[in-house]
C-alpha cells in the first residue's frame, strides 16, 4: 500500500529515543566548512526567521527572502493565543508524552508519530530560547511564567504574551535575524518574491526571484533551498491570512518535483467576524479564548432569525426560551468549548437550516453572547464587595468591568470593525479559513521529495494531521526553525563541502529565468477585461461553497470542473495594468492567483479522494447517525502525497501509510 517513492526516513528505535539517536548519527559539517556553504530561505515568519538566524549563527551563509518590506511583518505576527510547551510548570501532570498524545489525537490520527513526538520533545527548548532572547511572556506575581489552557486538552501548557504571542515570538526571531544581518551572515532580501526553484542535476541549487520594487528578475544560488512560506488558506480568497499570504513558493517546488501532501486538510476557525458584504477583503479572527465565557446561539425560530437579519428584531429582545444554544444542546460536556472543527460545522449546520443572523448574501452568522457572563461575574463581584441585594444596573456595571479586564482589547477590536459594542449586544461570528494542515510533503529530516529542498512551518504537512490544536502552530514553526532543521540540513550539506559556490550562469538558471520572464510578459501583455481580484473572489466562492466546511462527492466534482473553467477564463481575460519592470502589485497578485487556481483543483481532488471524514475534512457521505465525522482508519490512515504530472488533474497519488505503535486509534467524542 505504501508507495516505494516515499521514504519518510523515520529513525529506528523506541519513540522517545528516535530524535536523540538520530542527532547522534547524522553527519555534521565542521565550522570552517560551513563558511563555504550557502543556504536560501524563502519566508521569514517563525519557521523561516528562526531557521535563518540559527543557520547563520552556526556559520552558514544565509540568503533570506520575504515579499514584505521587512521580515518583521510575516503573518506569524498575527497569531494571538499562545504557544504550547510541555514544561509542566503548573505541576498538572503535563509531559512530552501527553503533548505528543494530545497533538496526535487532536489531529484525528492523521499525523506521523515520530515527527509529533520530536515536536513535543523540543517544545520546552523553545520557551527557554525565547525567554533568553527577551520575549516578554506573561508572568505571575512571583515573577515566574504564567500559563493558560486551550481547547482540546486537560493541562495548562500554553505560554502567552497578552493576545499577541505570535507578534512577540516573531519579533524575537526578527531580533535574532537582525543580529546576523548586522554581522553580514544573513543577506536579507526584502520585497523579493521567489518565482521558481532551480534544479541542477536533480538537486535544489537556487531560486529565481523578482525584486518587487524594480521588477528585476534575479538569480540566486545556494547549496540548499528552504521553503518557509506558510500556508495556502488564501485559496479561499476570504480567510484570516494576510492579503499577501500565498502558495506560490510551495506550488512552484511542487511543479518541480516536490510532492504536495493532504492539500484538503484545512482548519476553519469558528470565531471570526462574519462577512459584511461583497466589498470584504479579509476576515478577522476573534480569539478562541472568548469561548470560555461567551455562549453561542441562534434564534430557535426561523422567523426570528429572518427578523434579526432584516433589522426588525434586536437579539436582546429574543426571549431565553426562543434561543437555541446549539453547542450546549448537542455537546453537553464540552459545550461552547468543543474543538474548532466541531464548533465550526455546528454553526454551518444551523445556518444552512435557515437560522443564520447576519444580513449578507449568504445569511450566515451566529451570536456569541456575553450577557450571562456579565451577569454571573457581576453577581460574584457584588458579593465580594459585600452588596447582598444589588440592583440589576449595578450587577451589569460590575460584570462589564470584569469582562473588560479579561477581553477588553478583543471587544475594542470587534467594535472597531463592526461598530457594535459586545457589552450591549451579542457579537456576530462565523467560521473562517484560518490554517492549512496540508502542505509540502517532507521526510523526518524536513526534506521534500526534491533533494536539497526543505519545507518548514505551515508550508509543510508534517505535524498536525487533519486538525491543528490551538497554540501549536507557533510551536511547530519555531521547533522546525530553531531545533530541527539546523541539525538535519547538516546531514545533507556534509556532502557539499567541496562543491564550491554554485554558478548561476548555467543552462538550468537560463531556462528557469526564461520561463519566469515569459510568464510575467504574458500577464502584462494580456489585454483582458477583469482584474485579478475578480477571479480570486470567484475561486474563493467555489472553494468555500464546495470544498469548505463540509464536502460531498458531487460538490467536489463540480468544484474541479468549475476551477478548470475559471482557470481557462483567467488566462484569457485577466487584466494586469502597468509594467513588468517596476513596482506592480497587480502583477504580483496575478502570479499568486494563477497558482491558487491550480492548487484549488488539487485540493478538491484530494478531498474527493479521501472517502472519510477526519478533523477539518468533513465528507457528508461519511458521518455517524448523529451527524458526527466518521473516520475510516482501515482505508485512509495514510498521507496522500501528490506528484505533479503536468496539470493538477493529472497529479499522481502516493500514499504514505501512517503507523501507530504508541497510540491506539480512537473515535474522538466531545459529548
Amino acid at each position, binding site marked *: 500500500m505504501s508507495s516505494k517513492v516515499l521514504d519518510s526516513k523515520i529513525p529506528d528505535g523506541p519513540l522517545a529515543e528516535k530524535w536523540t539517536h538520530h542527532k547522534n548519527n547524522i553527519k555534521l559539517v565542521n565550522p570552517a566548512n560551513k563558511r563555504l556553504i550557502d543556504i536560501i530561505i524563502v519566508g521569514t515568519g517563525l519557521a523561516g526567521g528562526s531557521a535563518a538566524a540559527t543557520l547563520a549563527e552556526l556559520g552558514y551563509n544565509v540568503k533570506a527572502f520575504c515579499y514584505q518590506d521587512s521580515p518583521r511583518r510575516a503573518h506569524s505576527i498575527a497569531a494571538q493565543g499562545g504557544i504550547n510547551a510541555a514544561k509542566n510548570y503548573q505541576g498538572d501532570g503535563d509531559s512530552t508524552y501527553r503533548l505528543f498524545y494530545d497533538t496526535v489525537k487532536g489531529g484525528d490520527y492523521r499525523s506521523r508519530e515520530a515527527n509529533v513526538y520530536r515536536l513535543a520533545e523540543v517544545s520546552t527548548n523553545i520557551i527557554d530560547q525565547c525567554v533568553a532572547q527577551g520575549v516578554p511572556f506573561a508572568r505571575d506575581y512571583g515573577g515566574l511564567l504564567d500559563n493558560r489552557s486551550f481547547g482540546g486538552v486537560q493541562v495548562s501548557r500554553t505560554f502567552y504574551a497578552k493576545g499577541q504571542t505570535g507578534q512577540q515570538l516573531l519579533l524575537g526571531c526578527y531580533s535574532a535575524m537582525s543580529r546576523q544581518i548586522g554581522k553580514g551572515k544573513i543577506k536579507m532580501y526584502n520585497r523579493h518574491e521567489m518565482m521558481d526553484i532551480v534544479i541542477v542535476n536533480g538537486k535544489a541549487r537556487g531560486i529565481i526571484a523578482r525584486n518587487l520594487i524594480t521588477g528585476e528578475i534575479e538569480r540566486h544560488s545556494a547549496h540548499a533551498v528552504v521553503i518557509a512560506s506558510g500556508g495556502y488558506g488564501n485559496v479561499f480568497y476570504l480567510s484570516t491570512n494576510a492579503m499577501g499570504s500565498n502558495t506560490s513558493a510551495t506550488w512552484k517546488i511542487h511543479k518541480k518535483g516536490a510532492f504536495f501532501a493532504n492539500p484538503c486538510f484545512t482548519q476553519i476557525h469558528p470565531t471570526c467576524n462574519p462577512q459584511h458584504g461583497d466589498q470584504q*477583503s479579509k476576515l478577522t479572527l476573534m480569539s478562541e479564548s472568548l469561548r470560555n465565557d461567551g455562549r453561542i446561539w441562534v434564534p430557535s425560530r426561523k422567523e426570528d432569525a429572518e427578523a434579526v437579519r432584516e433589522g426588525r428584531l434586536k437579539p436582546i429582545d429574543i426571549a431565553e426560551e426562543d434561543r437555541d444554544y446549539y453547542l450546549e444542546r448537542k455537546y453537553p460536556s464540552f459545550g461552547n468549548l468543543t474543538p474548532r472543527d466541531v464548533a465550526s460545522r455546528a454553526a454551518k449546520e444551523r445556518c444552512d437550516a435557515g437560522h443564520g443572523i447576519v444580513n449578507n448574501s449568504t445569511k450566515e452568522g451566529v451570536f456569541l453572547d456575553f450577557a450571562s457572563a456579565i451577569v454571573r461575574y457581576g453577581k460574584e463581584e457584588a458579593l465580594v464587595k459585600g452588596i447582598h441585594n444589588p440592583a440589576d444596573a449595578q450587577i451589569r456595571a460590575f460584570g462589564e468591568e470584569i469582562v473588560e479586564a479579561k477581553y477588553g482589547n478583543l471587544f475594542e477590536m470587534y467594535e472597531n470593525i463592526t461598530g457594535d459594542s459586545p457589552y450591549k449586544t451579542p457579537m456576530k461570528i462565523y467560521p473562517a479559513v484560518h490554517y492549512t494542515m496540508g502542505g509540502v510533503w517532507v521526510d523526518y529530516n524536513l526534506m521534500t521529495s526534491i533533494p536539497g529542498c526543505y519545507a518548514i512551518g505551515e508550508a509543510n504537512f508534517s505535524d498536525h494531521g487533519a486538525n491543528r490544536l490551538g497554540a501549536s502552530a507557533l510551536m511547530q514553526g519555531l521547533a522546525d526553525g530553531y531545533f530541527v532543521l539546523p541539525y538535519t540540513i547538516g546531514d545533507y550539506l556534509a556532502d557539499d563541502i567541496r562543491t564550491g559556490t554554485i554558478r548561476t550562469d548555467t543552462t538550468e538558471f537560463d531556462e528557469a529565468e526564461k520561463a519566469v520572464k515569459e510568464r510575467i510578459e504574458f500577464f502584462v501583455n494580456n489585454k483582458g477585461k477583469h482584474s485579478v481580484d475578480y477571479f480570486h473572489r470567484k475561486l474563493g466562492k467555489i472553494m468555500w461553497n464546495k470544498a469548505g466546511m463540509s464536502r460531498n462527492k458531487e460538490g467536489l466534482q463540480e468544484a474541479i470542473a468549475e476551477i478548470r473553467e475559471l482557470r481557462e477564463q483567467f488566462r484569457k481575460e485577466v487584466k494586469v495594468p502597468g509594467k513588468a519592470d517596476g513596482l506592480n502589485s497587480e502583477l504580483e497578485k496575478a502570479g499568486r492567483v494563477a497558482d491558487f487556481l491550480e492548487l484549488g483543483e488539487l485540493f478538491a481532488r484530494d478531498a474527493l479522494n479521501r472517502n472519510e471524514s477526519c478533523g477539518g475534512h468533513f465528507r457528508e457521505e461519511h458521518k455517524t447517525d448523529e451527524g458526527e465525522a466518521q473516520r475510516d482508519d482501515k482505508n485512509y490512515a495514510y498521507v496522500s502525497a501528490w506528484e505533479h504530472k503536468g496539470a493538477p488533474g493529472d497529479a499522481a497519488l502516493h500514499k504514505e501509510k501512517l503507523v501507530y505503535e504508541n497510540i491506539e486509534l480512537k473515535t474522538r467524542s466531545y459529548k
Partner: protein
Amino acid sequence: MSKERMKLKLKVWRQNGPNEKGKIETYKVSDISPDSSFLEMMDILNEQLINEGKEPVEFDHDCREGICGSCSMFINGEAHGPGKRMTTCQLHMRKFNDGDTITIEPWKAKGFPVIKDLMVDRTAFDRIMSAGGFISVNTSGNTQDANAIPINKHDADKAMDAATCIGCGACVATCKNASAMLFVSAKVSQFALLPQGQVEAVERVQNMVKQMDKEGFGNCSNTGACEVECPKGISLENIARMNREYLKSGMG
C-alpha cells in the same frame, strides 16, 4: 450600521519613485459601504482605476488586522487617519460621512523615501534593529531554564507594553520633526526592563541611537504627538527611559 452607502472625493498623493515629482490627484468613488474598512475602500478605487485602464494606487498592507505594521497612510492630516489607537486597516468607513473629501498621503520623512504613491521604504528601521536591537544569544537547546530568573511582573508587563510596537512608522510620520525616538526607545526599553537585556545595555543604546541619527530622522522635541498617534499606544515614558539609558551608557 444604518448609514447609507457613501460617495466620496479622494485626494490621493501620486508619485512614481523616490526622485520623481509627486502630486495630489483627485478621484471619486461611490457606493461605499460604511461597514467597509478604509483599505477595502482603496481596493474599490483601484478596481475602478484598473477598469478605466489607469494604474492603481500602490500602498502597503498585509495582515489587515492591525498587527503587521505594513499599512501606512496619512489620512486627513493624521497618521492612520482620524481613529486613535488603530492602524489604517482597522479604520472603517463609518467614521466618514457621505460627500466627504479625504486627503490621503504617504508617510513623509527623509528617513522613509517614497517608493511609489503611498508606499514608503522603512528599511531604516531594520538597520536600526541590526545595529543593536537584540540580545546576543545563540540557539543551542541548552539555554538555561526559562524560569531560572524570576522577573518582577510589573517590569515584565512594562517590557511587554514597549514590545507591542508594530514598527509601522506612524511616530515618524506624525512627528513634526520626523523623529524616530518612539520606535527606537520602545525596543531599548523592552530590553532595559528585562534582566536578559542588561549585559549589552551599553552597546545597544549607543549603537541604535547612532544608527537612528545616521538615517536622517529628526530630533525629539517632546511634543508627544507620536504617543497620541501610535496605534499601539507606546508611551513617551520609553523615550525618557532611553534618554536615561543613553546618559548612563557613557558613565559606566
